[in-house]
């Protein structure tokens, strides 16, 4: 019988105190493994803290596309005690732990950054194994489970590296300990050390001297391993050929690049985790090249640029405002001037943006609000993951305005969706909320280089000329409810805006007839939006399209769900479909009904307490999920977790399962 080739999956983890370079070492590892020919997905977990608390990065490498992490770890790399105390338990039989050989006597109770609850948990496990409470005991427990131990004399190796480099400054050399943990991992899995050189250039952004120094340290570690440990680790990661042109990217970066492509030329923000990285990236890349014009295709210059000698470079203005009230208002102000503009924030920031959102809706101003959701409510879990803001963004604001709320499932979608968000905003003259989340923001993923061949920028009814001699009405009643729009500064285009109800010119009006007509004009755009956006931009369907059991979800749960479905299929489950909602508002009820009406089960998988999308679907389409798999502990779903949750639902028909994995 033909056995389907099992997907190769290697799960690697590194941990350490925040501020000690965990991030760059994880980037180093992820890029180096990708460079060796593997797809990677990496998840970053960290506290709302700058230095000292524990952070870790889990990287999964595979020979085919991988979209999420798994619960088990094959190889844990560490250079502090806390990482081993916390994560040794996740390392599976046959796996390995890299650790600092000098830390074996560290005591669990002496580590101040491990929470009491977690300490008790660890102590109990050790007690069950009749062991004490030192790091050595944790390692012994792992060894008994069949985990290989790789003690490294970091200090000796650092000194040795120092000798080779002729560098005596120990504090400088000490910074390379995380790189050494990565090099050790590479030696264990038999990966090509030269790929680390590439990884170093990526992680340290071409700071040549730093790269060379770190590479020397890598070589020292590699040699030490070759002569001190058996080369018998069961997972091997030899070089292979990638058939695709990939980039290794995180969510904030890919959205930033997409904004430049989309023609966003003003981005405003007030610093907030996990959104700020996007704006900081854009500020760093604020000047960019312009494509050479090809035959017969010229630039479309704004009429406001007549008689101007423009630069041959493009520029995006990134503005750090005093708060999020100003951030959204500034984006709107720029949009009024004819500029594609956006603001980027997270839940607490969006709470402040609601008044601006309402004004934009009332005045039909296109504006894009990129939201990286994080754990709420209030300050919540600032650095952790959640999908808790769907209903808030759908309903935010007093009174009623048309709006679009859309969500991306992965980085490639986030790229194209960002561009679509600007197109929708201008085409329908509405605010567009683009929902992303912490998991997308901070994960690293290998994705194909986004192709731009089909990308078009739709500016809707934006008038690109002066209007001499015509009467212009900004809010002219039209068939579609959408009126031609001019940028401030257009001759003959003078208009007024107001958050008060207004007439076609934009002057305040409390006339009941005009009020009704204006409400109808604005709100009818929701129907126009419903009819104009093609089905494949609203939903995506995966798996068995004739399935009896359907998973419904939105946003970054897509990755773990797709990976879980692959696993379930391997385990013999069939007839499961997955409907991913990309446009959440106006909710694509017609598509939901078409697919889900006859379903035996509608299993709603979401990372919030109440199953918000399920509620929205019930309200809009009259379809109620039969089962709920939810999680709100601040850690994104792993694929194995979704798989297990789904199995519970499928086998025991449990109505609501709360998952709770992840450290």
């Amino acid at each position: 019988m033909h056995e389907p080739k099992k997907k190769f999956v290697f799960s690697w983890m590194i941990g350490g105190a925040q501020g000690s370079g965990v991030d760059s070492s994880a980037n180093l590892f992820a890029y180096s493994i990708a460079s060796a020919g593997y797809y990677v997905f990496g998840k970053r977990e960290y506290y709302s803290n700058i230095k000292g608390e524990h952070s870790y990065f889990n990287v999964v490498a595979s020979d085919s596309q991988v979209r999420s992490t798994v619960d088990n770890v094959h190889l844990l790399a560490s250079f502090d005690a806390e990482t081993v105390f916390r994560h040794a338990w996740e390392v599976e039989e046959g796996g390995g732990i890299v650790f600092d050989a000098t830390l074996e006597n560290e005591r669990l109770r002496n580590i101040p950054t491990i929470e009491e609850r977690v300490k008790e948990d660890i102590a109990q496990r050790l007690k069950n194994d009749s062991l004490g409470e030192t790091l050595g005991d944790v390692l012994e427990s792992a060894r008994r489970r069949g985990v290989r131990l790789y003690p490294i004399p970091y200090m000796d190796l650092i000194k040795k590296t120092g000798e080779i480099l002729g560098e005596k400054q120990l504090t400088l050399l000490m910074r390379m300990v995380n790189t050494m943990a990565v090099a050790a991992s590479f030696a264990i899995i038999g990966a090509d050390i030269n790929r680390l050189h590439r990884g170093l250039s990526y992680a340290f952004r071409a700071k040549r001297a730093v790269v060379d120094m770190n590479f020397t340290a890598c070589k020292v570690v590699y040699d030490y391993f070759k002569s001190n440990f058996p080369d018998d680790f069961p997972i091997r990661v030899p070089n292979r050929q990638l058939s695709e042109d990939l980039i290794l990217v995180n969510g904030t970066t890919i959205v930033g690049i997409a904004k430049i492509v989309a023609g966003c030329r003003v981005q405003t923000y007030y610093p907030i985790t996990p959104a700020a990285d996007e704006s900081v990236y854009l500020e760093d890349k604020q000047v960019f090249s312009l494509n050479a014009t090809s035959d017969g295709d010229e630039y479309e210059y704004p009429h406001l640029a007549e008689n101007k000698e423009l630069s041959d470079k493009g520029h995006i203005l990134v503005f750090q405002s005093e708060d999020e009230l100003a951030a959204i208002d500034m984006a709107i102000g720029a949009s009024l001037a004819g500029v594609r503009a956006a603001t980027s924030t997270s839940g607490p920031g969006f709470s402040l943006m609601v008044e601006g959102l309402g004004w934009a809706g009332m005045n039909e101003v296109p504006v894009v609000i990129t939201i990286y959701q994080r754990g709420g409510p209030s300050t919540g879990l600032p650095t952790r993951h959640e999908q808790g803001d769907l209903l808030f963004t759908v309903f935010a604001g007093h009174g009623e305005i048309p709006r679009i709320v859309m969500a991306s499932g992965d980085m490639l979608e986030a790229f194209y969706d960002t561009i679509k968000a600007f197109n929708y905003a201008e085409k329908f003259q509405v605010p567009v909320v683009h929902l992303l989340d912490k998991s997308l923001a901070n994960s690293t993923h290998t994705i194909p280089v986004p192709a731009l061949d089909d990308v078009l920028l739709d500016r809707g009814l934006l008038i690109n000329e002066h209007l001499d001699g015509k009467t212009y009405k900004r809010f002219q009643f039209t068939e579609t409810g959408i009126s031609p729009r001019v940028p401030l500064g257009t001759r003959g285009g003078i208009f007024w805006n107001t958050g008060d109800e207004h007439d076609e010119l934009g002057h305040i009006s409390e006339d009941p007839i005009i009020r009704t007509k204006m409400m109808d004009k604005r709100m009818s755009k929701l129907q126009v939006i419903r009819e104009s956006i093609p089905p494949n931009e609203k939903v995506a369907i995966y798996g068995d399209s004739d399935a009896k059991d359907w998973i419904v979800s939105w946003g970054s749960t897509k990755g773990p769900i797709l990976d879980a479905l692959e696993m379930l299929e391997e385990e013999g489950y069939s007839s499961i479909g997955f409907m991913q909602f990309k446009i959440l508002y106006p909710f694509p009820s017609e598509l939901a009904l078409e697919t889900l009406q006859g379903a035996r089960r509608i299993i709603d998988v979401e990372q919030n307490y109440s199953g918000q999308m399920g509620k929205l679907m019930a309200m809009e389409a009259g379809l109620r999920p039969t089962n709920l798999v939810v999680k709100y502990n601040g850690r994104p779903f792993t694929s194995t977790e979704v798989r297990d949750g789904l199995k519970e639902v499928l086998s025991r028909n449990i109505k609501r399962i709360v998952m709770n994995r992840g450290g």
Partner: protein
Amino acid sequence: MTVTQRLTMAHFRTPIFNDWCPGCGDFGILSSIQMALAELQIEPHRVAVFSGIGCSSKTPHYINAYGIHTVHGRPLPFALAAKLANPDLTVLAVGGDGDGLGIGAGHFVNTGRRNIDITYILFDNGVYGLTKGQASPTLRRGLKTKALPRPNINDAVNPIALAIVSGYTFVARGYAYDTRHLKELIKQGILHRGTSFIQVLQPCPTYNDLFTKEWYAGEDRIDPQTNKPMPRIYKLEETGYDGEVKNPSEEEEIAKITEAIKKSYDWGDRIPIGVFYKNPHVPTYDQRIATIAPQYLQSAPAWQPVRSKSLRPVADVSSLFDELRVKP
């Protein structure tokens, strides 16, 4: 089109019914703005007037120019962004004292840090007009205007001093009923390269029965010699006061700032109007952006092409992808 016609105040009027109370000081400020724009011969479509919410914030509807009546307290962020997006625009922000110094105080202070080339006119009537006369942030402690059930127990902010310490580079005060003088201040504010702040003492005959037109005119203090009222308002420039920083030195700047702040505390029988402080040597925001991205001056956001005639994006991000590309 070139300006063929001389612009007059009439070009800046709209046919909209003005629903301010009769005798409201806002009328004088509106006329002053219209006169200033006409005298500067700025074509109406090149002007954008932003306001917040309040009686005063209805102003844009009465001016024939782009008029953006925003949210309570927020005219500044809207206005600043429009100016940054298209520096060709003449941008004015207008609003009440509650709007600018109560709900909008954060924006008021932070606007001073940037020196973006706009002019902000604050209609200071000591009350929240449109919500029927509650105390505004400029009403002094112990005072009880008509609609207050009890005297005010909050202290007042000093808008001139606050503007100066926040970094505004043109700080002036006008009086709503001295439209000629106010018009000149507004013209100076518009011509000044940087953020201009003009506080306008604005009688609200409906709710502020303390700081009335008559009170400012000193009708309660008759000069026994001339038998005429002794006006409380006087012009700084007539006293030889000069608040302009002439040389860009820290000493001179600090000296002028201190002098201006001291002056700003004059109140009661002698109330100064005019330019308190002016510093043309502070780099404007566009100059600051240009130190990082000189392209900005040539290609402001609203002037840049973003797509081609066949609707394709014009930005070339291949080098950004390249930095992230997985290379074997």
